[in-house]
């Protein structure tokens, strides 16, 4: 059985020969392992793709999550200087901002003038919200621009390297995240209360663009799309707000992806124990993350009982408290418990809940393969 078949069988709620293993790496974790030029790793699609393959093979994963796509050369426009400021640390200087790229984490962007907080009433939805999505809102002040001419080239490049061996998944960002990024986090969250209808108009517009993006992505040789929706958990919004401002929009994207015959799973960080059934209502094929205590509040067994009849689960190793900080015995015990519980469910992929933290050492990641090979057999 190939790794790709293994993942696909699990995503179809069946049991392959053994539990598939497929973690998502944080950008920092990838760079800690590979030690590339940090700016090139972020901006150059081939360097990034080669890194994804190298890590998948190094750690024996069954699939590759492509968290960035649409690479191009536009990042060089307006670039005034690249400074090597330390080992594995570069500063890119533009007219309006400075970017620090380092091996330790995501790039840090500092604009020369601070963004001014927007009033929801002043937003011109038709004019300001793009009908075609040309960026990924990665983190605070950090956007990854998508180049139309090479929107999904990374997928064919990857298939050219790995053939049909591994399962390849694309990633898109939820409309709610685009909305938060556009308005500014606090402003956006207050706007849900002050002007809910305007928020829905903005979400609607983003949803149309993201549906097109997701649908086009599905024309590539990928097996699934992950919807990244990190701010839709209990740490931020109520289940009622989830139902009003997240679910209807994500459901439409999920429908568009499933119409193309691909699987789709949602990734929401932190506490989501109160909304598993709502997430199930989205029609997604699976859920990822399901952070356990203390980062979240999901018990894997309970999650399988509640939603496991219709959704696969990809999770839920605590990347910080198990992989990064626990001693060897605790780390192994934590992973074995998850493996045992996961095997009882219908569709299970062993993974970290959130992405592998940057400073997790190689041995800890290799341990996942070793334990899966020994104890993950069906």
């Amino acid at each position, binding site marked *: 059985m190939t790794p790709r078949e293994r993942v696909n069988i699990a995503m179809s709620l069946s049991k392959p020969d053994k539990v598939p293993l497929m973690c998502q790496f944080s950008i*920092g974790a990838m760079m800690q392992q590979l030690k590339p030029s940090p700016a090139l790793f972020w901006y150059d699609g081939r360097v990034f793709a080669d890194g994804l393959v190298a890590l998948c093979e190094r750690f024996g994963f069954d699939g590759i999550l492509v968290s960035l796509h649409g690479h191009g050369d536009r990042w060089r426009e307006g670039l005034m200087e690249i400074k090597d400021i330390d080992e594995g640390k570069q500063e890119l200087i533009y007219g309006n901002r400075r970017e620090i790229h380092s091996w*330790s*984490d995501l790039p*840090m962007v*500092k604009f020369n003038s601070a963004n001014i907080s927007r009033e929801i009433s002043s937003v011109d939805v038709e004019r300001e919200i793009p009908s075609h999505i040309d960026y990924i809102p990665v*983190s*605070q*002040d950090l956007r990854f621009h998508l180049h139309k001419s090479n929107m999904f080239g990374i997928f064919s490049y990857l298939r050219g390297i790995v053939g049909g061996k591994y399962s390849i998944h694309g990633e898109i960002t939820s409309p709610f995240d685009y909305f938060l990024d556009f308005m500014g*986090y*606090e402003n956006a*969250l*207050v706007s*849900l*209360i*002050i002007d809910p209808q305007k928020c829905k108009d903005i979400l609607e517009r983003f949803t149309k663009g993201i549906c097109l993006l997701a649908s086009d992505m599905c024309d590539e040789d990928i097996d699934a799309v992950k919807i990244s929706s990190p701010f839709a958990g*209990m*740490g*931020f*919004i*109520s289940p009622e*707000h989830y139902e009003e401002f997240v679910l209807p929009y994500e459901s439409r994207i999920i429908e568009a992806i499933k119409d193309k015959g691909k699987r789709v799973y949602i990734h929401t960080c*932190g*506490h989501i124990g*109160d909304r598993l059934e709502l997430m199930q209502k989205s029609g997604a094929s699976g859920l990822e993350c399901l952070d356990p205590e*203390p*980062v979240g509040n999901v018990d894997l067994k309970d999650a399988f009982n509640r939603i496991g009849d219709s959704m696969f689960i990809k999770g839920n190793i605590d*990347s*910080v*408290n198990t992989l*990064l*900080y626990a001693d060897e015995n605790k780390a192994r015990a934590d992973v074995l418990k998850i493996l045992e519980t996961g095997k009882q469910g219908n569709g299970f992929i062993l993974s970290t809940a959130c992405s592998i*933290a*940057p*400073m997790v050492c190689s041995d800890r990641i290799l341990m996942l393969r070793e334990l899966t090979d020994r104890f993950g057999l069906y």
Partner: protein
Amino acid sequence: MNQILEQISICIQKGKVDSKMAYPPEMKGMPGADELTKAALDEGFSANDILSGALIHGMGIVGDLFREKRLFVPQVLMSAMAMKAAMVHLKPFFSSGELKQKGTFIIGTVAGDLHDIGKNLTAMMIEGAGWRVIDLGTDVKTERFLEVLNENGNAVVGLSALLTTTMEQMERSVKAIREHFPENRIVVGGAPVNSEFAKRIGASLYAPNPQVAVEYINSI
């Protein structure tokens, strides 16, 4: 509690800023924290009665509900807006010395980290508990914490980090603060932080949510 103070407290709890604000729907058209605070002063209530009997009381309830996950960030932000509207009327009493804050709380997200939601929420709740807050923003270098501590000797310091990689920076900052200001209390928080880590780096407290920080500094 007197009726008007109770009404102000309810406005804080419900995030009712002023009469123009349509939220919450069940209080549409009613006076909010803004008008009621002015009215209470006009009726002869002291600024201290209003601050401790209504505003701090209301924000305390908000903090408890947020900790219990019965209130969420948007509602807390609305409460903070209502608090801010009320505080406008009390500002002159701070300037005149009639009102005194409980102490000074210096807060910032550590160097290398630009995330600020958790830090901002904590700052709002601590301000709502009657403390003067000096918000140093994000990506705050150790030297900046030390500099501001030099100017505010008895202040409590709060450090936030969202990234696992910036936890190392948090450790460096906490150790430097400990070295220069061994008596000052240090509170740390953020998604990857826990009490074991806080203890190891020499912080006084790990606050998993803003209300824990409020209760701790109020108990000092």
